[in-house]
């Protein structure tokens, strides 16, 4: 949105989706998706299962045909081209590694299909395998390899074809947490080095925030919000986005004057005037301060109901007049269960949502 990366700047490899609709039977999966993706961007389609993100990816890859709308790469209309005629490659969710071929043959598959001479294939495959750090696996059979290794093979197999756009369908969902974080970092630096446009589908908000230049939050076949990770995380527009990214606390509120709202937990000063008379306000657990005295605006009383030690922070559940708020505090700040406290919610950290 406001700070798009643009590595080439000529727009020839920019991807333009417009008015994409798709239904399976009477179920509308995509209900008019339009987006412009700049060449070299790392885009994430983020949303819960069933929001249409995988279908959208498959439409870009050519595995599904949209009912209406178009997919264009620069001026080239991809909408009706089959997968093998698109300058787009895919890393599939279960990797779809050919099980009867060695790792080398898997990676070389695309180049061989395009009848590249074997003498050119070998150096290209090996340099790609070096880059993804699987060169030592060249002669292994895929069935003997771990999930992380197979994921790398799938990446190498797609990238060796030098696509203009790389599609990744939940590539890290089957990999355990510690390795997943390493692979996220690798994916990010790989994208930076290759300057290929990456479009990643995920339901993991941490992953989306960590790797993306831009996040498209999807819900029920529509884009709910798009923007940089900071934008989407700090300034969610709707309850859905606020809850899906970082589990913000949602307060139902009624407007009660200029920059004032009335909520179940008390009256709050708002940063902006809302457009509604009755709507929601979000506040992130880490933006709330726990105080013993009310010495600032927006400090409201509550009782600590439960506390969980999470290693690098405490997670508190604070009862406030019947509503429970999630609060995150520093590990050295110890509070007792049952303790009466004041929660300070600075006005600039309150997000007035559209709904």
């Amino acid at each position, binding site marked *: 949105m406001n700070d798009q990366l643009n590595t080439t700047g000529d727009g020839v490899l920019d991807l333009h989706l417009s008015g994409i609709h798709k239904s399976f039977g009477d179920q509308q999966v995509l209900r008019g998706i339009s987006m412009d993706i700049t060449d070299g961007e790392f885009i994430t389609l983020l949303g819960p299962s069933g929001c249409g993100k995988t279908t959208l990816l498959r439409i870009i*890859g050519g595995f599904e045909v949209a009912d209406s709308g178009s997919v264009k790469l620069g001026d080239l209309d991809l909408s009706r081209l089959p997968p093998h005629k698109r300058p787009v490659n*895919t890393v599939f969710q279960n990797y779809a590694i050919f099980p009867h071929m060695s790792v080398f043959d898997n990676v070389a598959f695309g180049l061989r299909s395009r009848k590249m001479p074997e003498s050119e294939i070998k150096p290209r495959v090996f340099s790609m395998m070096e880059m993804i750090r699987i060169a030592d696996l060249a002669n292994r059979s895929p069935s003997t390899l771990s999930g992380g290794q197979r994921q790398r093979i799938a990446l190498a197999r797609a990238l060796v074809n030098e696509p203009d756009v790389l599609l990744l369908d939940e590539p890290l969902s089957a990999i355990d947490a510690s390795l997943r974080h390493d692979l996220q970092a690798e994916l990010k630096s790989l994208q930076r080095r290759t300057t290929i446009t990456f479009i990643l589908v995920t339901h993991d908000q941490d992953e989306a925030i960590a790797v993306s230049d831009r996040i498209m939050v999807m819900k029920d076949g529509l884009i709910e919000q798009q923007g940089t990770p900071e934008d989407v995380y700090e300034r969610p527009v709707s309850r859905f986005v606020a809850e899906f990214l970082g589990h913000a606390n949602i307060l139902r509120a009624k407007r009660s004057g200029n920059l004032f709202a009335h909520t179940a937990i008390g009256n709050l000063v708002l940063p902006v005037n809302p457009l509604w008379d009755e709507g929601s306000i979000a506040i992130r657990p880490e933006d709330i301060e726990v105080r013993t005295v009310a010495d600032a605006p927006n400090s409201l009383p509550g009782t600590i109901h439960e506390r969980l030690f999470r290693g690098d922070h405490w997670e508190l559940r604070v009862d406030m007049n019947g509503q429970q708020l999630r609060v995150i505090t520093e590990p050295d700040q110890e509070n007792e269960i049952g303790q009466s406290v004041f929660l300070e919610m600075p006005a600039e950290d309150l997000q007035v949502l559209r709904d």
Partner: protein
Amino acid sequence: MTKIKTEIFEGKVTTRTRMLRTGSLLSSPGMLWLMAFMFLPMIGLCIMAFAARGMYGSVQWTFSTENFWRLMGFGLFGWSADTFLILVRSAALAIVTTALCIIFSLPMAFWIASKNKANRNLLMALIMVPSCTNLVIRTYAWMLVLGAKMPPAWIAHWCGIVPADQGLYPGAFAVFIGMVSSMLPFAVLPLYSSVERLDWSLLEAARDLYASSLSTFRHAILPQVTPGIVAAVIMTLVPSLGMFVVSDLLGGAREMLIGNLIQQQFGSASDWPYGAMAGLFLVVTSLLSLAAFRRWGGGLLPKAVRAEEGNS
């Protein structure tokens, strides 16, 4: 008390060995049945195969390998090709039938797998229905259908294949029609079950990586359906090797197969030891060819997809 109980529960009932032991106990009626009516008679067959023929169809219990040499074509007047031709003819019929069945049933399996669940079950039932009718009766039906003055014969005449007033029966064409139609369900069944479990993302990956249709089939489909093909070959090749009713009825009983040979020895020729040797030979060659197919057939087909851990 409770501790012992949990030990029994966790350590015995749920373990693999325990399950196997219980399983073999439960299957023992079947084991007994096989022992009594399959394994013991096979031993009898082996013994009789090395006995000699007595006067008036009796059996002389002396050890002799004469039956084997006779089957190999060595008679009183030196080697003749007669029995050798019977063996080759039987093998050729079985192999061609099996190949046709596989070629026909692979597209069928895909077509059935493309239907929704209810229709798939219906189609599979329809494929199995003809097997409910006795083979001989079905074969008689083919004799009628393929006879002269029937629609298939008209069409063949119109195409210039047969002269007017002549049917497609008896002849090689009729024999293969009968063989393939009776064996086809046994090829469709295992192939369908491997096509149904096909991992379609491999096909998409192949297309994504610029593979032609042929290359997609070779690299994404064939390795996945290979176990099904192996099963289908076994299910069709073994029964077709011993089958002679179809070729007798539809082929006009002019050419002998190993099945005829065996039946003749136990029937009109009253030479049980020679029949036993022919039967034993059929069983052993079937087993050997299956073993060879499993061992070296893998070179013809791509390696089967191994069950992969963590593959949802």
